[in-house]
């Protein structure tokens, strides 16, 4: 009988999917004529199947929603992080007020909602004239606070600032809402 010891290593490599093609052919020839090695192979495959079954039947626990927060909180309390710039610090504070992190997207989403709803309340209301085109709030505010006709440049600047702020908030909303499902690439690479 051929060297069963050598074949055993081939079996292990086969199980781990690292056996080369030539060695694979040698193993398959050997298996056809060696009952011992066949049984070895079967036992190891059965063992692997058992572990797969066990993994499925008894899945490991997963991190709960507040896990990341509690890790960061413990480190923060120990002064492990670099101090954040003032503005970022405030954003962070508002942000972490909405913990656990799965609902943290609410903070920026809430802010955006306010920005979107605020203008509605400031729309010009001429009850008798429903067909009138409504004027966006910025122009409206300018009209109310400024007796002089609106300066188009000033409005543009204001709008620009507003849209920048919206973009900024959008980014943070996106960033926060996506971060908890951010398990990319690495899982596929196993």
């Amino acid at each position, binding site marked *: 009988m051929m060297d069963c010891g050598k074949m055993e290593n081939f079996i292990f490599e086969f199980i781990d999917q690292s056996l080369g093609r030539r060695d694979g052919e040698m193993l398959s020839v050997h298996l056809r004529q060696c009952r011992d090695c066949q049984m070895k192979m079967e036992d190891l495959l059965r063992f692997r199947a058992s572990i797969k079954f066990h993994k499925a039947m008894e899945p490991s626990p997963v*991190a709960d929603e507040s896990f990341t927060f509690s890790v960061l909180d413990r480190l923060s309390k120990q002064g492990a992080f670099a101090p954040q710039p003032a503005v970022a610090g405030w954003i962070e504070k508002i942000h972490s007020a909405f913990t656990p992190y799965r609902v943290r997207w609410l903070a920026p989403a809430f802010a955006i909602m306010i920005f979107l709803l605020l203008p509605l309340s400031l729309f010009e209301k001429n009850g008798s004239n429903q067909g009138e085109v409504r004027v966006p709030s910025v122009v409206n505010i300018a009209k109310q606070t400024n007796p002089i006709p609106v300066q188009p440049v000033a409005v543009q600047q204001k709008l620009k600032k507003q849209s920048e702020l919206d973009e900024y908030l959008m980014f943070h909303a996106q960033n926060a809402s996506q971060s908890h499902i951010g398990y990319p690439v*690495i899982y596929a690479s196993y």
Partner: protein
Amino acid sequence: MDEGGGENVADDVLVRLCQKGDKNAFEHLVMRYQDKIFSVLYRVVKDRDVVRDLAQDVFINAFKSIQGFQGKSSFYTWLYQIAMHTGFNYLSLARVRTTTVYENGDLEKKLMDTPGGSGNWLEEGYMLHETAQAAVAAIEELPDEYKKVVILKEYEDMSYEEIAEVLNIPIGTVRSRLNRARKELRRNLKPLV
């Protein structure tokens, strides 16, 4: 991370930011790996009640020692290294506490604990369940050095190279330990399967 979503940023970039004390970068790394760390800790300690606390220790120790991370291995194998150390360290302390209770009757105990053929199980399903319990018990009986490679290989589906990084041993040693572990497992499982 102040620019970019963070979830697509490579580990090494996040690690460099962490080395400067960046909290958001570390948040991304924790979220990226927390479930994997829970998983490997659970396979090591087999106790749901302690996994969360141990996982916290893993990440806290990781951040505190991140200055020493040179990038010679990948971040996640380094993190696994801390997790394995934490898990086995916990086990060795737990063993001291419970040695007199279990001694070496683990295998028999586990086998007796498997649900009996009450009729609800299909014969095949029951067999598979029984075999799985026996396999788990057999891993439990292995010396720690073998158990580590088996857990990383069979539960975490790691390559030899990754296991070598996690355990900080040569690839040849991974292979030989794994093979010896399998021979032993097979010997232990022989009467059962």
